[in-house]
């Protein structure tokens, strides 16, 4: 078996606050192969964004990586120095953020922001850097890229800004792109376009993609595999079709049931009872048990997540073929 491009092992990212240590990411492990698209799904506060930022060492204080390893092409990024990380950021692992209104610096022109990204890693002239930036803009479907280079972020719509951010991410043809809910802030139609384009671009260049989102519908259209996070842990993971068609963890099932669908017109939308638990005060064992209809005494111990294939952390999983019939 070949080495995965990215292997996250038992990653723990903690935030020291006055009220105590918040374990935003608490023992997350997953693999990502070259060219693969993995969807990382969870609610707000489940630790999915922090997981993405931890990979590149971009967690702001008071957050810090408390344990685990992030093996990228065999190299541990957790113990790598800042200088080594900087050489990888943007060149081999690029990142796209959630809110395109916020990811481009409002006082710098698009040209400045793209050219500096080229020059950060390649010793080329300004003209060459500019040419590459222009081509990258053209590649993500921005019309008349030559003129648009001189523009400032506020002159672009949200969708266009996200395209610019994607163009910046693609500048160095990275091996991996960490996308942190990049379509959440966009219109549905723009979202669909961008999803399609990112998918195509990644397929063409063989770039692997970690797509962080709360939207299972997006993941099902895009990803090869999915990992569902709850309260800092992965509760279910597997090939996308398996998880969507036969979710085993009650939380995954709850998420899927709360997605509106045409097929269930007139039936009240199901929601997961209760609220996301406070990360400061997680229940012992399975964090989902207070909201779970199947919880019992066994749930006081956290089940382990098996290694391969379709796996789930639950003592009382749903049956493989039962979706939609009962519960």
């Amino acid at each position, binding site marked *: 078996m070949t080495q995965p491009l990215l292997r996250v092992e038992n990653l723990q990212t903690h935030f020291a606050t006055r009220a105590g240590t918040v374990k935003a990411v608490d023992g997350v492990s997953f693999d990502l192969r070259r060219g693969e698209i993995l969807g990382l799904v969870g609610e707000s506060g489940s630790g999915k964004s922090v997981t993405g930022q931890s990979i590149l060492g971009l967690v702001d204080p008071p957050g810090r990586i408390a344990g685990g390893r992030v093996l990228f092409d065999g190299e541990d990024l957790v113990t790598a120095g800042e200088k080594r990380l900087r050489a990888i*950021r943007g060149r081999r692992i690029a990142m796209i953020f959630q809110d395109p209104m916020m990811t481009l610096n409002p*006082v710098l022109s698009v040209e400045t922001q793209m050219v500096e990204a080229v020059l950060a890693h390649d010793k080329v002239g300004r003209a060459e850097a500019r040419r590459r930036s222009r081509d990258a803009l053209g590649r993500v479907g921005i019309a008349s890229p030559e003129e648009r280079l001189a523009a400032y972020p506020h002159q672009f719509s949200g969708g266009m800004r996200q395209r610019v951010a994607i163009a910046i991410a693609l500048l160095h043809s990275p091996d991996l792109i960490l996308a942190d809910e990049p379509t959440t802030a966009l219109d549905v139609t723009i979202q669909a376009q961008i999803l399609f384009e990112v998918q195509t671009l990644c397929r063409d260049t063989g770039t692997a993609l970690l797509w962080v989102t709360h939207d299972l519908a997006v993941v099902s259209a895009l990803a090869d595999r999915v990992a569902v996070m709850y309260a800092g842990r992965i509760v279910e993971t597997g090939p996308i079709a398996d998880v969507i068609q036969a979710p085993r963890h009650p939380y995954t099932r709850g998420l899927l049931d709360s997605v509106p669908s045409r097929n269930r017109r007139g039936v009240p939308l199901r929601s997961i009872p209760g609220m996301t638990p406070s990360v400061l005060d997680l229940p012992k064992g399975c964090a989902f048990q207070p909201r779970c209809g199947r919880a019992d005494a066994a749930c006081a111990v956290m089940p382990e997540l098996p290694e391969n294939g379709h796996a789930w952390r639950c003592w009382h999983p749903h049956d493989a073929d039962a979706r939609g019939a009962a519960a």
Partner: protein
Amino acid sequence: MIVFILRRLTQSAVVIAAMAVLVFTGIFAIGNPIDVLISPEADEVERAAAIARLGLDQPMHVQFARFVESAVGGDLGTSFVHGVPALGLVLQRFPATLELALAAMLLAVLLGIPLGLWAGLKPDSVAGRVIMTGSILGFSLPTFWVGMMLIMAFAVQLGWLPAGGRGQTASLFGVQWSFLTRDGLAHLILPAINLATFKLSLVIRLARAGTREVALQDYVKFARAKGLSPARVVGVHILKNIMIPVVTVLGLELGSVIAFSVVTESVFAWPGMGKLLIESILQLDRPVVVAYLLLTVLLFVVINLVVDLIYSMLDPRIRLGGGRA
């Protein structure tokens, strides 16, 4: 852009006109200069003659009309005390004040922005805390006291720097400047530090607050995710964003430093406009006070215009808004 400037100039003209009325009315209310100007021994005839000569027997609106008429021609009246044109008297003192103010602002910016950046990037570090504590001192210690302490320490005890005056000056563009000679520069240091203390604290606090806010923005994280060096992230992405509020406040402060460096000028016997103003007010030298105030207003208006222009260079969103209007 031209439309923008023209519109601003029109606004400025209105401000100056309104200020002229205010200043004139105000100065009219503060007392009769005749009592100070004419010796107590003078008799009624002499007194009446002097009043008529200065135009003080006319009703207020007539005096104002005459004042405006000559002001438009650049004549703001003749100093009662010195017997020379008031405007010339004020302008003659202007370079000294300008020099002091610019030196103080330069100090405040060159020290304040790096210190504020540092305190904003590392708010919990020892250095960050020391910087912030220092800025509180800079805010709260009274200027005259700091000035006297500076003289005490560096002029009297250590004897490193002179305690007052402008020292030797040299000519540039037909104006005398202190900073061009070694001696003048030595004279400039203490008053400049004194005048800069408050502004320095202000700049530190502004820069720190801005840095703390901007450093958390997604675009800073995105810049880091591009693999940029910390120097580039801080020096370009953060700095350019925090400069917007800093420039705004500095512009206003530059005006106030020039106009109201009265305390520092008095403590260090710096022969600038502030010292002249205090003397003129005490002697009820009406034309000089009026000339000083109008010149100050003009200064504020010009500085504000310049700040707006710099502002639009820093922030592209403003530039385009102004261009379209």
